[in-house]
């Protein structure tokens, strides 16, 4: 029998070539972020949707040492095409070094609002796209255990806390442990108090390093916090337990019987921790079992966000940035219904199942928003702030010394290292 070997070889070659071309025809975009484990799985769903839509492949790398890995990649001249940074301070650092590309001509006209201001990280152009955001100005409680109406003013909150303590019921769940950044849950408290008592303009100046730590407004924010959490019986387990408890565990006693504590000041991601199975096998549900009230005072909120930045201006990377900014992408992660991921887009609706999630989403997209100040400060200042919180909880009597030490650090940081990011409105 006569064979047609050359014909077969040609056919196989054409088929293989076709497969190879179809796999890489639209190219690949490299992405670096801090998400690993379950969060990585979720973010990969967003990236997969991008591939399905555009045909562009993605190469994702998730690492807990994002700062070190990105710094090293940038120094070697091989940054990823797109990196998602967990705070605006890091993003702004790369803008200053000229490593990030502005997104004006990539994204085109964007809807105005708080997030457009925040995504500029203190510059004239947009450099970041918020992939997900968190509300920090929130106080959480188990719906069955909140005695009386929700506090509306600082005086209400102080009175509620004092009454609960006097009744022998522990008002506050507090966990400051978060190695290697232990202390940050306390800095969120102080920032929130300062934002609501001194106002956004003062808060912005302070975050930009223009206000002395010894200023009376700042001292008052510390003592106000101290008035809530330092009296005996105000925090579950006292100062030692607050220092030793991980931030992710602090809210668990909200759901014990009897409750170990009644209120927790924490960012919206804490809902993920609340929805762990209880001893009786049930799982706390938003609205039915837990809820939040906004931080008492003026309607301004402290927020944080993971921001994607464009390091390599390739057509594939541009497409990804456009996709991440679109409502189509913004609704994927919140739509996974873990109840702790929020979009910054006003037009992403219908993905939040319950009233609690809807109110968090609404707060994140309406009204005046300010970035977490410690995320904007130079790293040396942020670290000192975290440490000062731990020292203060251990010994509130050291406040004067601590503020003086923080002020010494502030003065040592060159003016060029501070970021002046206005609150969005």
């Amino acid at each position, binding site marked *: 029998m006569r064979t047609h070997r050359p014909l077969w070889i040609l056919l196989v070659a054409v088929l293989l070539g076709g497969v190879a071309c179809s796999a890489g025809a639209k190219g690949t975009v490299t992405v670096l972020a801090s998400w690993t484990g379950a969060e990585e799985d979720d973010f990969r769903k967003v990236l997969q949707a991008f591939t399905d839509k555009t045909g562009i492949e993605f190469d994702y790398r998730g690492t807990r*040492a994002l700062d070190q890995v990105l710094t090293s990649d940038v120094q070697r001249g091989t940054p990823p095409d797109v990196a998602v940074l967990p705070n605006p301070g890091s993003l702004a650092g790369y803008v200053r070094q000229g490593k990030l590309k502005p997104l004006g001509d990539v994204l085109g006209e964007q809807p105005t609002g708080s997030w457009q201001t925040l995504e500029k990280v203190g510059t004239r152009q947009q450099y970041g796209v918020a992939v997900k955001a968190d509300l920090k100005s929130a106080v959480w409680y188990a719906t069955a255990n909140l005695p009386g109406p929700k506090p509306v003013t600082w005086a209400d909150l102080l009175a509620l806390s004092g009454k609960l303590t006097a009744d022998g019921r522990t008002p506050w769940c507090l966990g400051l442990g978060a190695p290697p950044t232990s202390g940050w849950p306390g800095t969120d408290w102080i920032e929130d108090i300062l934002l609501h008592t001194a106002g956004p303009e003062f808060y912005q100046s302070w975050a930009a390093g223009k206000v002395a730590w010894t200023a009376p407004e700042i001292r008052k924010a510390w003592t106000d916090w101290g008035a809530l959490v330092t009296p005996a019986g105000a925090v579950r387990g*006292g100062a030692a337990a607050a220092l030793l408890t991980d931030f992710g565990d*602090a809210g668990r006693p909200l759901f014990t019987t009897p409750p170990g504590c009644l209120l927790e000041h924490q960012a919206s991601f804490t809902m993920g921790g609340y929805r762990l199975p209880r001893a009786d096998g049930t799982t706390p549900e938003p609205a039915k079992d837990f809820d939040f009230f906004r931080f008492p005072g003026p309607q301004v909120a402290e927020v944080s966000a993971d921001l994607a930045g464009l390091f390599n201006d390739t057509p594939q990377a541009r497409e990804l940035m456009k996709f991440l900014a679109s409502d189509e992408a913004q609704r994927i992660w919140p739509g996974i219904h873990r109840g702790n991921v929020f979009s910054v887009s006003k037009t992403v609706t219908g993905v939040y199942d319950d009233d609690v999630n809807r109110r968090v989403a609404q707060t994140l997209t309406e009204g005046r928003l300010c970035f977490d100040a410690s995320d904007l400060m130079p790293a040396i200042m942020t670290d000192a702030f975290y440490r000062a919180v731990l020292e203060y909880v251990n010994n509130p009597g050291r406040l004067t010394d601590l503020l003086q030490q923080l002020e010494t650090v502030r003065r040592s940081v060159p003016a060029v290292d501070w970021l002046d990011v206005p609150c969005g409105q």
Partner: protein
Amino acid sequence: MTRTSRTRARLVRLRAALLAGTLLMLVTSVWAVRIVQDTAETVRDRTTDAVLETAAARAALTAADRAAIASFASGEVALAGPGQDYTNQLATANQSLAKVAEANQAGGGGAGRLQVVAGLLAAYASAIGQADAHYRQPGAETLGAADLWYASRLLHSPGGVLEQLSGLQADQRQAMVEQLDEGSPALPPLWLLPVSLLAPIAVLVLLGLTQWWLYRWFRRRLNLSLLAASVVTGGLVVALIALLGQQGDLDDVRTRTDVVLADRQAEVAKNDAAGQQMLASVLTSRCEAAGCGVTVGAFQTAQRAGGVVLGRAQELIDADTQRVVAGAATAAESGGRELLVPAAVLAVGGLVLLGLYRRIDEYRYHA
């Protein structure tokens, strides 16, 4: 064609076939020697180092953590800080990690894990320093205990240093398994090694047939050159079979490495059990009557449930490690094979030419 010219043509064809077989033998035997030698040298110089030093770093870090906690538990910290043992063990761990970075076989993933470990270790050393400073400061002992706790969590928590090193160790071991099974990625896989025996066996058979044909056709005694070529080719077959035995030595290296990894794991478990139980006591002494909070409460319960863990004696672990290193060195001993094998094959080619030259030459003018 006359009988004479047919004989000459047959002789020329035989010579061509033998030379072609010799050439094939040269290629396959040099290739076989190279892949085994390359693999053995990589395993000796890099892979065993990468695996064993990762395990050693894990063990040294748990020993450092245990030593630091013991210093805080005994009160030695007031005068000597976290102690000399802590400092020595941390230095040992850093040296091991430097060697891992140099010998890393786990690619970009391994390098990424090393970056994470480096960052977390810097934070760990800083937290121990903070704990030391606070323990010496009157009224700040509770904060010192919290710093000690934070430091220990950086090692032990999910995603912490020990988990990262555990993953890195698994990656390096997997790289070793792949190298031993498949050889260097730049060369054909090791399992093809027996194929290299085909060419010399074929040449040996061809030499035998030639010898037999010459004897039948020319009624001559044995052709000594071709006999010598057969002996050399036979030696080559023996050498290649010995090469397969060398691959067996490499498998021994893998087995011995697993013994050391098990030893190190036992050492880590022993240090962990002792260190973490001491840490639970230190924390209990610093907490109020209401307890230490949810996180430490769960930790203390787990420590109470844990018993004493026994590890292997250090000298036995060292002896096992030495056996791995010696085994890898033995497996990489070539005995000059990389030169002797091609020389022997070239000699076979020369002997073939010599052995058939006189017979072909006799027919040169008869064609």
